[in-house]
């Protein structure tokens, strides 16, 4: 029998699936019904997860750049090239001239060994992952959706981003649970909602502050809620209407629906954290959670949906310039002592640069399975910064756009070719199991790093993935006591539910957070009468490296790129009529930053006055304003006033 139980390598939900193996080839996938997340379901991506293995476009040998070209090399040559490049960087610019990027899709074992390599071996604090966003930590669990009588979706579209969450929402609707959708785009779940607050992009903070204010004002009580009352600005529904375009009466209706409920799940994704008013919006959500703790309104579960299978795990392992593994503060001497005891002397516990700060500041960059270019708001500038590096190492499954710029490329093993663990968006630590050997000379990411470390004179003694995990369980308090045996059950173990240390990490969700409103985003003018929104929930997987390299699914996800090669411009039928545009026609789009041609799709999903385009296409247009995410300095595409005319 050859059915290997494992965990899906795509979004953060962490569905359980079986890989079928016949004659040494992974021939397909079956969803696991006993798994607490998938319950017998998989999305388009999960159903084709097997296509990552035995894939003709995989990297199978190390590549080293010689005479300007990447050429096949032996592991010895490649390791030597990496050693020489890193040692040269150390000699010339010191450890801080090196940057390390971990991965939201690689396993915990890989990210942990990489964190050790960065802070413990090279002594650099410049350690990050390009997909890290402000506050992805969530105390809630997907199962909370089954127990809720109201679900509030905040600027996300689980049908596109987290389909396993959609399944719970559709089933909740069947048992008559309420649904409020707060989003600019009128997507399928918004059409099915009891209340849809279609807000002007950039006004997420205003809308959520207005909703929270209505709920706070519904009670005369004082005491604990006084602190919440002070945190939320006194913004009236009419002011929200003016700032966000959400009808005051609809906001009141949403507040009433909220107050009538007993158990609410608030769901948001990294799409919200890419908004310029994300901080205010997330603070308002935390305040709703704080109100629930003060017994005002319904019980609240806050569910932040991490975009990738192991974004949560990469953070748990300390892939961040702000903290040590296990969310230990950089000043935490006990944690530092614990790490030094195992890693040896020379731990760097300084504050480092974020992924985006590294560009232009470091001279050498080591990238493990991170699609920096895909996450970039200005891919041209990022490409330039990467091309200007003295030394770039990439270890990955495919020769993607970042790898093509590298000096050394190291072939890594895919999820079905190795053992390990992923940690899902709800903190579920789950097993990944080897079904087939890696292709050619590819090997596990942690093993590659350990070998490079040994070449630098700092060997690591791991024999297996399990060895790495037992060190994780020793050193990272939230993983304490876990081992592969304990993770055998379908669904693994959720660390937020078990570790005492976890409670402190979620304190922010129960404590009032001051909501600061800094303007409701850009305003349209006579010259630029429409707003163009780069929507991260539209086709979020369309150009993802691990999707684009699959055999059958890539066809499905490449559709928008094929049909709208110059960029898809979604327009409301009213706007299209007024502008004299039809689906398939080209439009000239002008902003203060430039001009471009895009192809129109007329759809009710775009609200009047607002044009939508997928985030990944918008980044290439160069039409949108970029603003920096407050927590990570990540440049993101802000909503931008534009003029649209037939081309």
């Amino acid at each position, binding site marked *: 029998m050859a059915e290997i*139980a494992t965990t899906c390598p795509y979004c953060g939900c962490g569905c359980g699936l079986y890989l079928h193996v016949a004659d040494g080839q992974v021939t397909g996938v079956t969803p*696991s*019904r006993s*798994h607490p997340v998938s319950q017998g379901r998989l999305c388009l991506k999960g159903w084709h997860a097997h296509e990552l293995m035995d894939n*003709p476009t995989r990297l199978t040998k190390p590549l080293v750049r010689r005479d300007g070209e990447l050429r096949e090399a032996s592991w010895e040559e490649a390791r030597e090239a990496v050693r020489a490049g890193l040692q040269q960087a150390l000699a010339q610019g010191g450890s801080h001239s090196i940057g390390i990027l971990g991965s939201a899709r690689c396993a915990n074992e890989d990210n942990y060994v990489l964190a050790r390599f960065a802070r413990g071996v090279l002594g650099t604090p410049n350690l990050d992952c390009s997909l890290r966003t402000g506050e992805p930590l969530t105390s809630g669990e997907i199962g909370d959706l089954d127990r809720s009588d109201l679900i509030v979706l905040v600027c996300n579209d689980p049908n596109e981003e987290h389909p396993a969450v*959609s399944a719970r929402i559709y089933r909740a609707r069947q048992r008559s649970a309420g649904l409020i959708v707060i989003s600019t785009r009128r997507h*399928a779940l918004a059409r099915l909602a009891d209340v849809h607050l279609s807000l002007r992009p950039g006004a997420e903070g205003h809308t959520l502050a207005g909703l929270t204010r209505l709920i706070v004002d519904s009670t005369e009580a004082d005491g604990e809620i006084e602190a919440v009352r002070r945190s939320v600005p006194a913004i009236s529904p009419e002011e929200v209407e003016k700032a966000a375009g959400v009808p005051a009466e609809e906001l009141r209706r949403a507040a009433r629906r909220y107050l009538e409920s007993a158990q609410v799940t608030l769901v948001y994704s990294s799409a919200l954290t890419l908004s310029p008013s994300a901080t205010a919006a997330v603070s308002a959500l935390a305040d709703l959670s704080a109100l629930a703790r003060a017994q005002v309104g319904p019980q609240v579960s806050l569910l932040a949906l991490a975009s990738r299978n192991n974004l949560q795990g990469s953070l748990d392992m300390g892939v961040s310039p702000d903290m040590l593994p296990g969310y230990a503060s950089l000043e935490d001497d006990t944690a530092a002592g614990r790490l030094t005891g195992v890693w040896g002397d020379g731990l760097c516990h300084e504050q480092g640069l974020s992924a985006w700060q590294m560009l232009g500041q470091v001279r050498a960059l080591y990238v493990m399975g991170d699609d920096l270019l895909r996450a970039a708001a200005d891919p041209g500038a990022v490409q330039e910064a990467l091309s200007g590096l003295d030394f770039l190492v990439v270890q990955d499954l495919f020769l993607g756009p970042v790898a093509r710029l590298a000096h050394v490329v190291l072939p890594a093993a895919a999820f079905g070719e190795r053992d390990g663990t992923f940690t899902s968006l709800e903190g579920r630590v789950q097993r990944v199991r080897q079904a087939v050997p890696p292709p050619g000379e590819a090997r596990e990411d942690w093993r590659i790093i350990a070998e490079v470390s040994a070449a630098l004179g700092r060997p690591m003694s791991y024999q297996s993935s399990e060895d790495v995990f037992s060190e994780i369980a020793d050193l990272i308090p939230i993983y304490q006591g876990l081992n592969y045996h304990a993770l055998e059950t379908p669904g693994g173990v959720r660390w937020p539910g078990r570790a005492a240390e976890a409670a402190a990490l979620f304190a922010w969700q129960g404590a009032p957070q001051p909501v600061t409103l800094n303007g409701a985003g850009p305003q349209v003018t006579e010259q630029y009468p429409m707003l163009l929104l780069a929507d991260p929930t539209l086709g979020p997987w369309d150009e993802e490296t691990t999707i684009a390299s699959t055999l*059958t699914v890539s066809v499905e996800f490449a559709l928008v790129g094929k049909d709208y090669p110059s960029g898809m411009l979604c327009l409301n039928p009213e706007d299209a009529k007024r502008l004299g545009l039809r689906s398939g026609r080209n439009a000239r789009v002008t902003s203060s930053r430039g001009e471009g041609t895009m192809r129109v799709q007329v759809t009710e999903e775009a609200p009047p006055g607002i044009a939508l385009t997928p985030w990944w296409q918008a980044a290439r247009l160069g039409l949108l304003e970029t603003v920096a995410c407050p927590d990570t300095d990540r440049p993101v595409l802000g909503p931008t006033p534009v003029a649209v005319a037939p081309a």
Partner: protein
Amino acid sequence: MTSRLLVHGKVDEFVGRLLKSAEVIAPHRTPGGDLLYASVDTAADVSWDPGIPMESLKRFLMPQRETILQFSKNGKMSVSAVYDDKPKVFLAARCCDVTGVSVLDAMFGGTYQDPYYLMRRGQSTFIALTCQQPDTNCFCVCGDAGPFLKKGYDQQWTWLPEGMLVEIGSEQGQRLADAHADLLVPAELEHIKRRHQLAKEAEGRFGDFRAYVAGAMRKLSMEEVESEVWEQLADHCVDCGGCAFLCPTCSCFTTTDRFDGAEGIRERHWDACSYSCYAREASGHNPRAHRKTRLHARFFHKLSHQWAQRNARHACVCCGRCLTTCLAWAHMPAAAEAIRRGAMK
């Protein structure tokens, strides 16, 4: 053809003998607790528990990914087909799944013969196991596909207190019984009566889900379904393709060629008619660009008289897997009800 009885204690021996001459595919309980059809190594690997395996038999007759051709261009071009001709016994196959094979037969063995499917099919023996305890989402009583079968099997087994009642349904089934006659005794009238009693009792144990397909069939066949139904269903589908993949009767596929120097292979992969690129033409024109038209095509294929005449039955065996696997709410019971009522509930 008479029925036999395989007394307790002899079942494992029977399975052991099957394993000597064929690949045996049977329900298997994984360590994680899932019930899956799997190619078993020993009789102990077979799970006799009630319940429906997560997937149908399709994976073993038409794998999700298979190599169908090999070619090389060393000097002159040579092309050869790759067949799986290993004999297979499908043991304890659920009645709905055995019924589903008849629809695949009509698709792959009709006007256009599919040699890869037909090779496996010709080497297969189906031993159905009657379902005395339906699973949560099962509704085969609505589709004439269980919980006990009248035809379509080589052998049909039923657990009785005295042992396993073996009904013979084909000459192939008869030959198999004859080959192991030493393990079988003739069944008594009492056993047959008991089997019919059990069938009646099983029909009373079905859950909440029903799909009254007759009304839906009529409206679909006459093109009388309100267009709003498809629009509503489209908002309740996320194009995962799960319903098509788990369906015992869905057979859509795509092919892709892979080259490695002068050598190459052609692979066949499952595809799903709900995918937006499924019907897209090379020109870029897509006759089913909208999800509502894809769902219309899907349910027309499943339930219309036009297709039912071709397949000798409608193409839903009411196994309930689409209901289990739907990421939204566009599975067969939901669609059949929406079509019948003219709107989603």
